[in-house]
């Protein structure tokens, strides 16, 4: 009985912390419509800040708490809302999720840089661990305090939401943002206050947890998954629901600790890690019992730029070019570089798995590395000799597991799929990859593929295998996108409700897409031909995949490749820049590798500015090249020529890199303009001068002794980058014509409508739509008919 009571009290105390964290999540979600995946990271940052103030600078407990919880955290939340979240308000759900996930990863990276994880940072418990005896059980004061704070938060939030102007405004935003604004409310300021409040609550939970556990940035950040599980009970919107969920989760975890013997096992599966899997399981169960989401008619929004699927011919040539370039570049690289590049291509294959799911269908997954892990395990188990049978099993297994995992969440909105996949990733980390039976010693060797006499025995062959697979799959995806299936999926992304009323089964279509995506990720694992450690398959490694895939421009296969290369480039850059540091004056000096650790996060956050990703913009620049035969010939001949020159030892490898960069970035995109036939009214480029300048730039890049003159790799790369940029800018200046892709795209402003002719009612409705006004408000103002009576 004492034991039961002890664990009940411990559970309730944990529940109190979850409840506080979850209420912060709910408050920001309901008022800004953005689900803050970085909520845990906010709490983590606050915990570290508390440690810094209290332990590092020796400020007493109470002023420290006040400083962190009431000053720093709310300020931080407000700044985040103002600086980042406001920009993505009208963005798609995928962009919203990716931006907050990126924020989480960036904050994690920053925290690891400021407070390196190799130092222990104990935070003493409040009241120095003193206890009071209740019904024969010693209860620490700190636990009572925690529960008291949770109750205070519950009562306080209720009062704020029901009784204050701020609370009324916050609830009004949820109902109708535009209406609140029309009535003189200030949704922007209210959202900022809501984020400040949310960050404050995150800080409370973070500081409370920190006082009970050792500080670990990753653990604290991922505790947010517990808060998700709890918030989902209230459908992410109800505070009482979240409190109920918190009690259930807190008690379940506590009893699991108390009553499940670590030596228990279900067959080969040890239950030692069960406690860590409980939040994930709970999240699943709650999602499973949620009723299906109601379809809503939103009215269409105009696409920012409709992504034209490339023609199959373009895709085939792209595939061939990719394989040739990979073969050529690979043959020039030294062994360690080759290994890194081959890994980068492997990542490209995994980001490719998100093209159908995120790019075509607008759904999101945060567990792609988990599927990669399942594929890798399947290959190691059933294809130990490198047999293609193992690959086939891996692909089928991942498709089936993917379908089962996604099915419950796909009935609901996109945010639930993100949550469910994150939970799945955590579940697999503890219950699959964390099992010593499954991954002895925490690592696994995926055998190299051996198919029809082609055996992957070295990194070069691995690189070729990846390039060929990517080219084939990329072509398959383009084929699918242009098929009836692809149109249907694109249609579903535009308007689910219209698809349903046309007779499309939304859930089964989405499950199919998810299974395809999981299968491709699994294929990436099965073909990897390298050693993985359990950590590779964790949530923290899946997040960058999704983030950078979206940054690259997930609507297209090329974007996925770009995303994969960005991801692959980070470890490469880390090795190249290992000896460099970025100094700001002399006070702060950061090793470049540290900066790189949070770069993906910052790149993801930048999506707020360019929600379509990088690839569509780049593609626009290169599309013209494909349409001009002389440009294509020169591009092909030039590339091959550079490769031969390097092979034959005429130029060094660094010169090859420099010349290739100048060629690809500065020369090739300008070629179509130089070869375009003269038009009477169009501007005439100065062809000869530009050609001479570009050739000069190329020669200088190829023969400048980069390797001898600049000793550090990092500075060399920077130098080459700056040089390339200069060549391009000067060339554009010499030519006198600005390429289309560099011009700013002008969207017609609704203000300019009707200047050339009288406004019709249709124009008014169009203007209303592009201004985001509700169409239902319009007829009485503009139209006639019965409703038009004044």
């Amino acid at each position, binding site marked *: 009985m004492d034991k039961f009571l002890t664990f009940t009290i411990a559970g309730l105390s944990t529940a109190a912390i979850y409840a506080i964290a979850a209420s912060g999540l709910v408050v920001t979600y309901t008022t800004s419509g953005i689900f803050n995946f970085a909520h845990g990271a906010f709490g983590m940052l606050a915990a570290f800040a508390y440690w810094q103030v209290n332990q590092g600078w020796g400020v007493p407990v109470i002023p420290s708490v006040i400083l962190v919880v009431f000053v720093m955290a709310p300020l931080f939340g407000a700044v985040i809302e103002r600086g980042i979240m406001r920009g993505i308000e009208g963005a798609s759900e995928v962009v919203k999720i990716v931006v907050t996930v990126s924020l989480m990863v960036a904050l994690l990276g920053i925290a690891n840089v400021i407070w390196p994880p190799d130092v222990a940072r104990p935070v003493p418990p409040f009241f120095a661990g003193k206890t009071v005896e209740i019904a024969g059980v010693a209860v620490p004061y700190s636990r009572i305090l925690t529960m008291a704070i949770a109750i205070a938060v519950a009562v306080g939030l209720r009062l704020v939401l029901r009784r204050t102007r701020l609370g009324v405004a916050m609830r009004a935003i949820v109902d109708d943002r535009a209406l609140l604004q029309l009535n003189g409310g200030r949704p922007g300021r209210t959202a900022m206050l809501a984020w400040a409040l949310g960050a404050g609550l995150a800080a409370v939970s973070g500081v409370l947890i920190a006082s009970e556990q050792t500080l670990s940035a990753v653990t604290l950040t991922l505790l947010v998954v517990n808060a998700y599980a709890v918030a989902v009970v209230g459908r992410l919107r109800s505070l009482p629901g979240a409190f109920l969920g918190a009690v259930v989760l807190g008690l379940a975890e506590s009893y699991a600790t108390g009553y499940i013997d670590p030596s228990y096992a279900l067959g080969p599966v040890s239950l030692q890690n069960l406690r860590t899997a409980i939040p994930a399981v709970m999240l699943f169960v709650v999602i499973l019992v949620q009723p299906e989401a109601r379809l809503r008619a*939103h009215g269409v929004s105009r*696409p920012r730029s*409709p992504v034209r699927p490339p023609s199959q011919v373009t895709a085939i040539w792209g595939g061939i070019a990719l394989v040739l370039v990979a073969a050529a570049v690979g043959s020039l690289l030294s062994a360690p570089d080759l290994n890194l590049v081959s890994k980068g291509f492997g990542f490209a294959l995994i980001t490719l798995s998100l093209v159908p799911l995120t790019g075509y269908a607008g759904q999101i997954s945060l567990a792609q590395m988990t599927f990669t892990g399942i594929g890798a395990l399947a290959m190691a188990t059933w294809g130990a000799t490198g047999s293609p049978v193992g690959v086939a099993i891996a692909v089928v297994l991942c498709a089936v597991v993917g379908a089962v995992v996604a099915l419950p969440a796909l009935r609901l909105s996109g945010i639930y799929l993100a949550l469910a996949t994150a939970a799945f990733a955590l579940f697999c980390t503890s219950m699959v990859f964390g099992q010593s039976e499954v991954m002895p010693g925490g690592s696994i060797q995926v055998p190299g593929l051996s198919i029809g006499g082609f055996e992957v025995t070295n990194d070069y062959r691995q690189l070729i295998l990846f390039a060929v697979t990517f080219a084939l799959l990329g072509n398959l995806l383009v084929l699918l996108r242009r098929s009836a299936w692809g149109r249907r999926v*694109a249609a579903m992304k535009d308007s689910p409700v219209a698809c349903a009323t*046309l*007779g499309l089964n939304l859930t089964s279509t989405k499950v199919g897409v998810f299974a395809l995506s999981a299968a491709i990720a699994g294929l990436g694992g099965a073909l990897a031909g390298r050693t993985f450690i359990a950590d590779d398959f964790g949530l923290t490694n899946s997040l960058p995949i999704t983030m950078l895939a979206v940054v690259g421009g997930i609507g297209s296969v090329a974007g996925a490749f770009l995303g994969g290369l960005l991801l692959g480039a980070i470890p490469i850059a880390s090795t190249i820049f290992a000896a460099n540091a970025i100094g700001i004056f002399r006070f702060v000096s950061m090793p470049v590798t540290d900066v790189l650790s949070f770069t993906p996060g910052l790149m993801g956050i930048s999506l707020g500015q360019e929600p379509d990703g990088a690839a569509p913009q780049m593609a626009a620049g290169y599309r013209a090249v494909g349409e001009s035969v002389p440009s294509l010939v020169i591009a092909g001949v030039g590339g091959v020529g550079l490769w031969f020159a390097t092979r034959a030892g005429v130029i060094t490898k660094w010169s090859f890199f420099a010349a290739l960069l100048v060629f690809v970035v500065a020369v090739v995109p300008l070629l179509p303009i130089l070869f375009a036939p003269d038009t009477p009214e169009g501007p005439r480029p100065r062809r000869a001068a530009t050609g001479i300048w570009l050739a000069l730039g190329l020669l200088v890049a190829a023969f400048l002794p980069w390797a001898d003159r600049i000793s550090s790799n990092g500075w060399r790369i920077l130098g080459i980058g700056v040089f390339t940029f200069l060549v391009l800018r000067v060339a554009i200046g010499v030519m006198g014509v600005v390429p289309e892709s560099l011009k700013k795209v002008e969207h017609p402003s609704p203000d300019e409508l009707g200047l050339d002719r009288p406004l019709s009612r249709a*124009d008014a409705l169009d203007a209303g739509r592009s201004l985001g006004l509700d169409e239902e408000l319009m007829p009485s103002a503009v139209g006639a008919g019965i409703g038009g009576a004044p």
Partner: protein
Amino acid sequence: MSSLEVTDLSVRFGGHLAVGGVSLRVDGGRICGLIGPNGAGKTTTFNAICGVITPTSGRVVLDGRDVSKLSTHQRARVGIGRTFQRLEVFSSLTVRDNVRVGLEIRKGWSRRRAPAPAFLAGGADISPVDEVELILQRLQLTELADLPVGSLPTGQARLVELGLALAARPRVLLLDEPASGLDERETVDFGNLLVDLAGAGLGILLVEHDISLVMRVCEHLSVLDFGQVIAAGDPVAIRSNEAVLAAYLGAPAGDDELVGAAAIAEAAGHANGHGPGRGGAS
């Protein structure tokens, strides 16, 4: 001839009874109107008929088959089609691909020739590709076929939405304010199109605020107010119905307050007599 029968349909949102016991009947070949002030429950009724929301009670029967338990996409497959008050089209696809998607969802992967619906080629065997082109022709969208729908003005996008719905070959079509966003000429053409479609055997239930259009094309009207049918009958009878005038004006018709009533009367007069006209205040 097909028929859609809605019996005693109620939808309750929390404590608010949005639709309370609505009964309707739409027969093939006829255009029925469903009118009423904003918030009367017209769109909610549509949502309940096509399964986007689950009604609290009531039955929806299509050609003698109770479809009340079917999901949205299953109802679409048995022949209930609809459009939306706020445009729902596939804005990143071209006009042609929009119509094609509608067709492909219905037919799956089949490329076989099949008899065309009556409103197209009058029963001749056509391939899916032909069917798409015929629908585009029928709606005069052929010239726009390769443009993305997102770039079209509302009036043309409305036609695309109708084309989508027609591609699914509904037996009964529910149109939710299809003329909002159309100019006067477009509205007249649109009305003629509806009459033609009904002439080919399609049953149409029309929700519309443009009362002159309603008066011109509908054979039968039901008037909703506060979720209840307050009047039903042919347009001429509805025009003089006291309860309807009261619902629109908020009070029994007085001397000077006849703007709305005048709107109805004027519109109906136009419709019966001398071609197109738009009633009410301008």
